[in-house]
């Protein structure tokens, strides 16, 4: 559905979001920008794929208590399970990326500035396909 937004295969330790970087001004883009550099001061350079930082710090977070409308995929027959959204600041890229938190992480488990890392997960599945996506997971201090 969104080809090339993250690495495919491999395990959680290697999983990364993929962006692009402009060869002329080194601006980074996520979701990937493959057509043109969006820095207004840049004449435009070659855009090459780069993995984004695996870890970042929580910029903000929330939990959706109501079922979002389509095109979000959820089973209307099943009881609605609130999910947590986390906006994460990546230090090297100096950008904020929004994602869902891994299942089971509630707002009480998060705080602005806390460290999280990106992991792979299942967005939804139908008879033919398992749609993968990225999730943010709190980094445990002790590890």
């Amino acid at each position, binding site marked *: 559905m969104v080809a090339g937004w993250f690495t495919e295969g491999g395990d959680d330790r290697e999983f990364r979001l993929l962006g692009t970087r402009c060869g002329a001004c080194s601006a980074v*883009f996520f979701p990937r920008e493959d057509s043109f550099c969006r820095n207004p001061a840049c004449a435009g350079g070659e855009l090459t794929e780069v993995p984004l930082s695996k870890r970042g710090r929580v910029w903000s977070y929330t939990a*959706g*208590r*109501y079922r979002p409308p389509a095109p979000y995929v959820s089973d209307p027959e099943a009881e609605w399970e609130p999910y947590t959204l986390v906006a994460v600041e990546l230090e090297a890229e100096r950008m904020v990326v*929004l*994602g869902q938190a891994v299942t089971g992480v509630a707002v009480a488990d998060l705080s602005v500035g806390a460290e999280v890392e990106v992991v792979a997960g299942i967005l939804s599945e139908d008879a033919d396909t398992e749609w993968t996506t990225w999730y943010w997971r709190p980094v445990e201090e002790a590890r």
Partner: protein
Amino acid sequence: MNDVAVLGAGMHRWGKWGRSFVEYGTAAARAALADAGIDWQDVRSVVGADTVRGGYPGHVAGATFARALGWQGARVTSVYAACASGAQAIDSARAQILAGMAEVVLVVGADSAPKGFFAPAGGDRPDDPDWLRFRLLGATNPAYFALYARRRMALHGDTLDDFARVKVKNAAAGALNPYARYRTAVSAGQVASSAVVADPLRLLDICATSDGGAALVLSSMEYARRHGAGDPVRIRAVSTVTPTYPRTVLDLPDIATDSAAAVEPPAPGFRESIARAAYEEAALGPEDLSLAEVYDLSTALELEWYEDLGLCGTGDGAALLREGATALGGRIPVNASGGLASFGEAVPAQAIAQVCELTWQLRGTAGERQVAGARAGITTNQGLFGHGSAVVAVR
């Protein structure tokens, strides 16, 4: 001076009426024309703020209202800029007047909004950021409002009580406004006991979707004088700026910000730059304002606008609210109309409705919610996909 005159303002009361937006817009237009004392057939240009259904402006607003009012050959313009549509309609009308293309222009916006969360148009459209944020993340509009609210709590120490206080204030003002959808007082307890929609925001922290319509009759200053309006309310500035790269605050409908790795972020953020552009064009500042109408999609967002408008320093929004400065009777009332908290969103109408309120306040005809001696006011608003808008009106 690049002033244009506001000869007439009109609205259809907001609510859930279940009728076509054409009815609301036409009623508002007729009210604005009557207020201006101008015959529809004397209007030589009409500008409509588009109502979009299914991603396609099936009813292209300018012509839809011109047809409903009766085809009479006027120049027509239709504009779409999401929530900033109304301000861009005003801007188009003003540009025509200042360029000498039209002397008197009717501006109309109206909507009948679907119930519940706003959702993108149907079909699989992975190249559309609005579609993507719903499909991949289930990130509704309230989710973004909640992210801003939670960050304010962490950075500035705002509390849920502060957010509730905004609703209490705006509901008290809205109770005095005959055009508002909600006309009853709300207590802090009622906010606190309403359901959490997007943590930490509750149902009463977030504006509803509504039906409604608003219209203005704008003219050149010369036309206003000839028409016997010697001292009309004047629009002195309209800001329709875009952000400056890199935009570093996560904003609807994007799922990521620009990266600031290559270019330092601009000193004033996007929302702040919207007001700055209006102040600069109007040659006045926040200290000159009598009132402000801001885009309170959520209670927490209203506090952010105080800071972006320069009514107080960064992080001081809640303190300004707590001291009563932004309530009716305070130093700088904000959302004297009751705001979106009392109206709800009728997307193409709301930026026009904000200017209707300024018009009535500056004329001194706002009744029980009148801001004493109002001389200057600002509206501010933000449309999806990087549309800023602010309007300055003076008397």
